[in-house]
């Protein structure tokens, strides 16, 4: 079991000792069930930090914000930041380390185990409560979720409320950490890619029709990209909303820049955006499923990335985000890699 005071004590210690600039963690939302990210600078404020099965956000995203902020400062504070991570989130940090985007001493990792139960899926919770409002969700010793409402508590087995990705999770506790809270429970996963079965059992025509309908809903708000810790490029290939222009960029460079897709949110352009993004995440996506969670139109984006995760595993035996010393999939090769597609 995770004792929240252990987390707060560690946070208090590293802040008091000046070891970190601030600690990124989860705090209670004044309005509603789901927590909000918090940036604790003052050791007195560590009481704000919470931990429970509603802590679904992947806070690793804020590490690239921190890096970009530092790069703009003349004399940046070089101390690391503290960050609270779950198993999945820690894999994102490993990928950032593999890609040398951040250094190990840029982060002080406060790892927390979900102890095999994972975190909740908001929609599943809403369906279970049928209109009642949840005030909190806790984990009991048996690994079940205890949902508190005004009318009392309901106990639900974790598998019924947890996010789909938690059912297939292979990193139930952080793979990298400076301190680890909670038990190193490893849940056995027989079929790690079974959520893809539904998609893979469709014919090509059915899949195309399915995605046509889903992708036409997209309004190109870019929330999926904005929330992904691995989408840290200053200039995104498929879009001009982050165009890295400086005073030295020549007019010809700006004039000659290729516009790969138009701004119009029509299926043809939306497809290119989503597919290119998925391909750029092949071997890097660690299935935190934040992209799917934040989508305001409920597009099931996780399927796209999960499929490529499966390909990476089946073709190259590669699992993203486990070993910081391992090179990233797309920047390395082994002699035994398949070559039958090379003609």
């Amino acid at each position, binding site marked *: 079991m995770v004792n929240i005071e252990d987390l707060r004590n560690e946070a208090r210690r590293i802040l008091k000792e000046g070891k970190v600039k601030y600690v990124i963690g989860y705090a209670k939302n004044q309005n509603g069930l789901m927590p909000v990210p*918090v940036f604790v600078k003052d050791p007195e404020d560590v009481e704000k930090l919470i931990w429970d099965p509603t802590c679904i956000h992947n806070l690793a995203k804020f590490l690239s914000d921190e890096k970009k902020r530092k790069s703009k400062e003349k004399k940046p504070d070089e101390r690391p930041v503290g960050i609270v991570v779950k198993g999945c989130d820690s894999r994102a940090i490993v990928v950032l380390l593999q890609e040398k985007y951040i250094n190990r001493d840029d982060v002080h990792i406060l790892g927390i185990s979900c102890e095999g139960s994972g975190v909740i899926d908001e929609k599943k919770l809403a369906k279970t409560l049928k209109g009642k409002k949840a005030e909190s969700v806790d984990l009991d010793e048996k690994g079940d979720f205890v949902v508190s409402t005004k009318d009392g508590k309901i106990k639900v087995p974790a598998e019924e409320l947890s996010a789909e990705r938690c059912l297939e999770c292979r990193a139930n506790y952080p793979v990298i950490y400076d301190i680890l809270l909670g038990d190193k429970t490893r849940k056995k996963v027989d079929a790690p890619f079974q959520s893809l079965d539904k998609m893979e059992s469709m014919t090509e025509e059915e899949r195309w029709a399915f995605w046509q309908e889903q992708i036409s809903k997209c*309004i190109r708000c870019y929330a999926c990209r904005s929330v992904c810790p691995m989408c840290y490029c200053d200039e995104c290939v498929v879009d001009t909303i982050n165009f890295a222009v400086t*005073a030295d960029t020549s007019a010809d460079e700006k004039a000659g820049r290729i516009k790969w897709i138009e701004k*119009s949110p029509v299926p043809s352009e939306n497809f290119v955006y989503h597919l290119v993004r998925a391909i750029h995440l092949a071997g890097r996506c660690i299935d935190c499923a934040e992209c799917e969670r934040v989508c*305001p139109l409920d597009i099931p984006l996780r399927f796209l990335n999960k499929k490529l995760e499966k390909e990476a595993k089946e073709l190259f035996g590669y699992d993203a985000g486990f070993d910081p010393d391992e090179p990233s999939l797309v920047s390395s090769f082994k002699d035994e890699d398949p070559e039958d597609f090379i003609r």
Partner: protein
Amino acid sequence: MDKILSKKAFSQWVKMLQSFRIYAPLRDDDIWTYEVVKLPEHIDLDFLTTALSPKKIIFPQKEVFLEFRKTNEDAPEIKEVLPEEDPTIIFGVRPCDAKALTLTDKVFGGDFDDIYYWKRRNHTILVGLACNTPPSPNCFCLSVDGSPHSTDGLDILMTDLGDRYYVESLSKKGDELLNLGKSLFTQPKSTDKKDKDKIQAESRKKIKRQIKDLKKVPPKLMGMWGSPFWDEEAMSCLRCGICTYMCPTCHCFDINDEILSRAPLKGRRVRTWDNCQFPDFTMHSSGHNPRPDKSSRLRQRIMHKFQYFVECYQDYQCTGCGRCISKCPVGIDIIEVLEKVRDYGS
């Protein structure tokens, strides 16, 4: 004029309106969106807040302004592409979304009329549905001079009385629609009006979230432009663009030329929604960006809605629909931000 329409007769009324293009909220799993209705029976007015407001029907996310073509050495030809003037009805418009259209009307009118907006707007009839219960846990229309049964911007307001609707026509267009279904409507009895008034009064009490003294915010904001307050509020912002795209009052857009063929040149000039929260919304061609960071962009959003717009039009540029609160991936809550502004420095 006020009428009563039994719920059973509702789809019959809609059948009589087949000469119009009809939009209503349709459900896809957990998301409601306004779509064209093929069968009147599909209209179910028991819906929660839609993902996007009906603004997208009058001000679509993409529309073509003109087409251009150049063959050989001749001068390019341009062809204006105006919206089709299809008479349209939107059913199930929430009062907050209708009020939002009166605010976008102010922006798209003024010194220069936006012909594309008005051609659609003038051919659209808005049939509202009063919110007997708040469709979102984050509704706060009462705090921004709105109400769950406000008639601002609507041609008809329907209030659900259980087995029947109390139907108020508010304009000539509304009268026209009621006349098309004349036989289905009955005169309201005095008990009907009492029921309606009671339901509407109770609906106000059900709105849980309020901002006290919002009118203190606009003058407060004026002194907060350089404050570090915005850095702290924007710390967790992902600069995604959900809040602005979901907002029924936001109107920023982009105009781009899309090329369909290079030689001979063929293409079109297209307007698409744009977003002041995107990093290079304000970036100059030189690379200079007046709003280079999240905190200046969040500040812009709040100040535009609750200070600049208020000074220009004496209305908050917000109708309290709560979409930005419900959908923000990191829980940035505009009500909390405004309360902090109101209390800042005290």
